[in-house]
């Protein structure tokens, strides 16, 4: 099994471990609810070094990624991050990822841990096939990636590295010596991801320990993957292997805001995606809140006694104190407030269709207090 550079440090910190995508990772330290609420109300620190980190460098770096991804990395300014995905010829999602663009010739792809080898192989195949002049290098196991998430995260990061934190607006990157700072995350909250491309256990441990100490005055809570999962479900963020796979397109997954059909170049999956953009899709991702009980992955969704889909992610929301989930159904059931049934182990629970985020966006999440509508 893979270990991150912080593995032994997590053990010292009293983590309860779990296996995730081949990595031995902290599930929680003190408890999922407590860690979850720390991120919604204050700030939390996660080791996310299991995420795949692949450097793409060279003359054609951005052009190869332009062909392989649905968003527009050519148009993306240097010093910014882009959420995107790679699709196959059928428009199905190979993986979703973020691209860090340092320059046209130097980009970092951050992909799902479970898909790292697949993404690497996909890039290498098309690099050869398309004759792109660039290098593709997996640096996952020798680098560190931390996430500092929650409304107090700007203060924690500013105290730790200085004024670059405040200057790094959402979806931007900055660099302080060899530490990369990105204003991104996977919790629905404001937050940062910190990457050290070249680290060893000693340096990774020292930096993380110093960050944790420095953030203590803001209540910086060490968090495991348990809270990472409940936080992303509350925010309605899809997870590869649950909401996303090679048979699901960005339109069905409702992440079509990343598909740039009008970008200058052709890209993998464009044909089907263009068709779905004009004709619409019949299957669509929905969210729901259970009246009582906890939806779980694999449970059937029923409407009027007919099975109409399955739950792809479900959990107990530590914030709402209710069961919440996501799944795929025919678009005719995508009706806010529609009563649906979730069939669980010989019983049924009532749930209502609800568009994410499941929390009140005026009170929680990165748009809190801004009164903006969701995009």
């Amino acid at each position, binding site marked *: 099994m893979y270990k991150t550079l912080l593995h032994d440090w997590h053990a010292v910190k009293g983590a309860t471990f779990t296996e995730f995508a081949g990595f031995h990772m902290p599930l929680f330290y003190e408890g*999922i609810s407590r860690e979850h609420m720390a991120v919604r109300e204050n700030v939390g620190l996660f080791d996310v070094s299991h995420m795949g980190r692949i450097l793409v460098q060279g003359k054609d770096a951005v052009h190869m990624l332009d062909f392989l991804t649905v968003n527009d990395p050519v148009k993306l300014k240097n010093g910014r991050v882009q959420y995107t995905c790679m699709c196959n010829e059928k428009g199905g999602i190979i993986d979703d990822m973020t691209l860090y663009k340092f320059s046209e010739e130097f980009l970092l792809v951050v992909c799902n841990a479970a898909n790292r080898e697949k993404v690497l192989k996909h890039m290498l195949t098309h690099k050869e096939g398309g004759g792109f002049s660039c290098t593709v290098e997996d640096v996952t196991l020798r680098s560190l990636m931390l996430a500092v998430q929650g409304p107090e995260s700007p203060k924690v990061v500013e105290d730790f590295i200085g004024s670059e934190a405040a200057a790094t607006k959402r979806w931007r990157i900055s660099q302080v010596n060899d530490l990369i700072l990105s204003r991104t995350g996977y919790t629905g909250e404001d937050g940062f991801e910190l990457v050290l491309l070249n680290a060893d256990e000693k340096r990774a441990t020292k930096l993380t320990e110093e960050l944790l100490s420095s953030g203590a005055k803001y209540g910086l809570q060490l968090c495991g993957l348990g809270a990472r999962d409940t936080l992303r479900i509350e925010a309605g963020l899809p997870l590869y292997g649950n909401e996303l796979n090679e048979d699901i397109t960005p339109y069905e997954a409702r992440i079509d805001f990343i598909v740039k059909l009008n970008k200058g170049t052709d890209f993998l999956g464009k044909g089907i995606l263009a068709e779905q953009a004009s004709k619409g899709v019949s299957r669509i991702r929905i969210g729901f809140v259970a009246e009582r009980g*906890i939806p779980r992955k694999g449970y059937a969704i029923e409407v009027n006694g007919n099975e109409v889909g399955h739950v792809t992610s479900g959990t107990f929301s530590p914030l709402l104190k209710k069961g919440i989930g996501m799944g795929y159904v025919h678009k005719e059931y995508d009706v806010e407030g529609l009563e649906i049934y979730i069939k669980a182990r010989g*019983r049924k629970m009532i749930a209502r269709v609800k568009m994410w985020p499941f929390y009140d966006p005026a009170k929680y999440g990165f748009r809190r207090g801004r009164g903006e509508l969701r995009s």
Partner: protein
Amino acid sequence: MSYEVREDRYYTKTHEWLLLENGVGVVGITDYAQKSLHEIVFVELPEEGKEVKMGERIGTVESIKAVSDVYSPISGKIVEVNKELEEKPELLNSSPYDQGWMVKIEVANKEEISKLLKPEEYKKLLQEKG
């Protein structure tokens, strides 16, 4: 980790306990069970009046990550369920042997009790688990 095992009751291999009180069996889950599940956030209980058999599923206990069935340690009629758990499932963590009791069963066949684990036997089972 150490687990409390009370001397006054019987146990099952599936980590339920049974305490006899004047012919009525009080049933719950053990300290080991609650510690293995961690934060319990949802409890499903059976209906009062239901007849159950030894080993039959009588409820579900869920943490954020896990779902665990609860099996009846004895046959009989369910005469009372602990409704407080529906509002306060955390009682199963804080007080598994007292406030966290789940159901009371009118014991149909006392001979079944001999099939249950005595405290010493249950302690041994936990030791084997390490």
